């Protein structure tokens, strides 16, 4: 089993230094958590090890001998595998065909396939997939699975190759608590088998649950390194430059006024029936549920992003449900899940992406190459406040890292006049400091008289920030809590299909 050593790795992207003289050593049979702010260089460092990027300088050593890794193919030949954040399974193909394509036991053009399909899959692969996704249907096409399941299947695709070095790039950004639990168990077994695991993460919980060692990166450099048992929560948070201190936004809050900011009545479609909600100005409502319970579809229907079959939606005092064909309802901010696909055009500049909300305010004749000068000042301020990096608005939005892209969308959707905001997993993939910034921004939007609806994976966050929490399961509301009555035990119980405790 190899010991991996990265020595004095440097990597630049144009003027942007991504890795500045980073040296680390990884030992087999250990799970190393790699932490850091968005854009600190965690993913880049691991992509160098995986051969996805070539370092400008520095060496990679396996068991003390220098190796040249020029491509992911080289890396895989050395037993180094990485599960990236971007999807790699073919959405249109059934799961079993996806797995067959990559299964090392089925390699070679001479492999004879029988018409049995699923039955041709090696037993080990079937067992592995069932371990991470119990009862998985191999005949289902990949796009039919929900996002967290797809992420787990991406992991299955890699670990069935029996890696000796396994790198996971922020699985907890997509996986909920239940799925992470399964992943922790699986990783623990891998550790027993002597596999070297690197887990890129933002979550302190990941460190607590399974890491042996913690590496923290900051601003392209290795900031600190310690054993996990000595790394308690406060220390880690401190290392990652969290502003610290109690949450000021949640303590002093005005009571919601009696005026309605957003409402839906009898909303039906995409598996939902007769959903009704009313959000007052100044009120923040949370939606809790296991991923795949229909939250994202509900939010997309409420915002006008996808159509509902029937029902009525009002924003402010206006009935808007007739406007569906034109897109997001007027007077609404919408932060969708998977913003890279749903809210951003990667090939266009950040400025163009910000201006998408202001197209109607622009003069009809203008010089399009100057768009970065045309972004409203308050939007620029928001982009700066959220520390979107790099800050040059004329760069393509697709070059931003996942976290920074998310921040760009948050800035845009909170930065324009709206009666209400709908946010779906608004802090997914963000570092703790920025998560707090975004949560406080949403809270501030409520304080300024907007109605806010937030779908969130973290019950603690929902309890801290929301006035009211709806618990959903299987495309139904199964419970409603207010701030005083919300407790994690009851909510979890409902989310997983139990009866309301009260």
């Amino acid at each position, binding site marked *: 089993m190899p010991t991996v050593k990265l020595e004095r790795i440097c990597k630049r992207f144009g003027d942007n230094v991504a890795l500045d003289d980073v040296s680390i050593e990884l030992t087999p049979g250990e799970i190393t958590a790699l932490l850091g702010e968005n854009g600190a260089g965690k993913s880049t460092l691991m992509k160098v090890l995986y051969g996805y990027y070539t370092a400008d300088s520095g060496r990679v050593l396996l068991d003390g001998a220098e190796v040249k890794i020029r491509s992911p*193919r080289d890396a895989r030949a050395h037993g180094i595998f990485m599960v990236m954040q971007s999807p790699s399974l073919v959405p249109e193909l059934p799961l079993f065909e996806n797995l067959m394509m990559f299964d090392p036991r089925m390699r070679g053009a001479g492999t004879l396939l029988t018409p049995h399909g699923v039955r041709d899959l090696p037993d080990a692969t079937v067992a592995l997939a069932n371990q991470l996704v119990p009862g998985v249907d191999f005949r289902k096409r990949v796009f039919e699975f929900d996002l967290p399941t797809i992420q787990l299947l991406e992991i299955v695709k890699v670990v069935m190759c029996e890696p000796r070095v396994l790198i996971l790039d922020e699985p907890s950004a997509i996986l909920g608590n239940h799925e992470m639990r399964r992943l922790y168990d699986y990783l623990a077994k891998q550790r027993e088998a002597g596999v070297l695991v690197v887990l890129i993460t933002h979550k302190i919980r990941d460190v607590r649950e399974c890491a042996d060692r913690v590496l923290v990166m900051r601003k392209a450099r290795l900031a600190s390194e310690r054993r996990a048992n000595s790394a308690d929560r406060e220390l880690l948070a401190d290392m990652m430059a969290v502003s610290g201190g109690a949450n000021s936004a949640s303590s002093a809050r005005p009571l919601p006024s009696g005026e309605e900011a957003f409402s839906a009545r009898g909303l039906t479609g995409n598996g939902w029936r007769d959903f009704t909600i009313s959000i007052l100005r100044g009120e923040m409502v949370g939606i809790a549920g296991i991923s795949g319970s229909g939250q994202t579809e509900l939010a997309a229907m409420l915002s006008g*992003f996808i159509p509902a079959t029937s029902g009525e939606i009002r924003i402010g005092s206006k009935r808007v449900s007739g406007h569906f064909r034109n*897109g997001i309802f007027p007077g609404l901010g*919408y932060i969708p899940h998977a913003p890279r696909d*749903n809210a951003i055009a990667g090939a266009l500049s950040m400025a*163009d992406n910000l*201006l998408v909300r202001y197209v*109607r305010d622009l003069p009809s004749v203008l010089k*399009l190459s100057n768009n970065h000068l045309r972004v409203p000042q308050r939007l620029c301020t928001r982009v700066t406040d959220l520390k979107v990096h790099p800050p040059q608005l004329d760069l393509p939005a697709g070059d931003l890292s996942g976290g920074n892209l998310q921040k760009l969308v948050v800035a845009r959707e909170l930065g324009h006049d709206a009666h209400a905001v709908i946010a779906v997993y608004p802090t997914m993939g963000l570092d703790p400091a920025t998560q707090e910034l975004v949560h406080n921004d949403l809270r501030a939007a409520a304080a300024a008289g907007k109605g806010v609806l937030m779908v969130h994976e973290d019950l603690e966050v929902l309890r801290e920030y929301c006035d009211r929490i709806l618990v959903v399961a299987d495309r139904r509301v199964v419970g409603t809590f207010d701030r005083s009555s919300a407790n994690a035990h009851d909510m979890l119980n409902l989310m997983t299909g139990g009866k309301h405790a009260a």
Partner: protein
Amino acid sequence: MRHRLQYLLREVGAPALGVLVLAAIFFLMNGAHPGSLFAQMFSDAFGGAFSLSQTLLNAVTILLCGLAVSLPARLGLINVGAEGEMIAGAIAGTAIILWMPSAPFLLLMPLMTLAAMAGGAIWGAIIGAGRAYFNVNETIASLMLNFVAADFLEYLINGPWEAPGSGNWPTSDPYPPNAMPPVFTFAKVQVNASVVLALIAVAGLFFWFTYTRGGLIARFLLHNARLARFAQIPAQRWTLIVMGLAGIFPALAGIYQSTLVEGRLQAGFYEGYMMGGFVAAWIARNDFVALVATSLLLGGLFSAADALQLDANLPASTGIVIEALIIVVVLLLRTPKRISA
């Protein structure tokens, strides 16, 4: 400046060299001397007033068909319906001419032009409506509708519009002199009215996509239609309108080609121009100004190919072979060198 030069070298110099080398090999295989043939081709295309007039006539039709490709492509739509739109334009224009053959020029010319434009727009809008409201793939639909248009044309000239005594090669009645579009002469080079219309269209589209809010909206629709939902853009209406607009250009080419070149409505008048327009648009990367240059180049190639067939005893398909060589070379040069795993 240096970047500009490098850009031109990469975009124009390298492909041109590649095409010349491959074409030379092709000529040698046919027992012809490449050097003198190239010189002959150049003079057939651009040497002298007659050649230039011919080239311009070809080029403007290619340009108009190219616009029908480039405009939808700027919103991510693929239109291969220029042929059908040329035919629709020619039929609509001819209908007006046959209806009032003795109308004065000043009435007939605008009416037949507008009718042709309307015909092309409706043809394009059918494709656009399919895409926008019924989720019909616009590429397939536009391609298939070409056959429908061609068959309808055949029906008309073999049936209701057939000129008495036109025999095995049926056509409509010849157009009256009043239906001939104006042709201007500059230094002996003939320029017909459709050149002016095409250049106005190019200028308008360039302006629209570079200096207007509509251009920004088109960018959103091209790069991520979901993003367009954030701008509250009625994407379906845009699809319909743009496909309709795109149909106007080949329709103009259709009626002008029929009147100026053929003098009557007949089968096959449209052949080759849609492919020419597609190649021109594609080499120009859907840039409207670059499209003017690539259309001229291909128009020249069309003229040269006609002349080569007559003078150099080369097969009639030489032009098509060279067109294919251009596609292959540009395709090779534009393919990313390495696709990372």
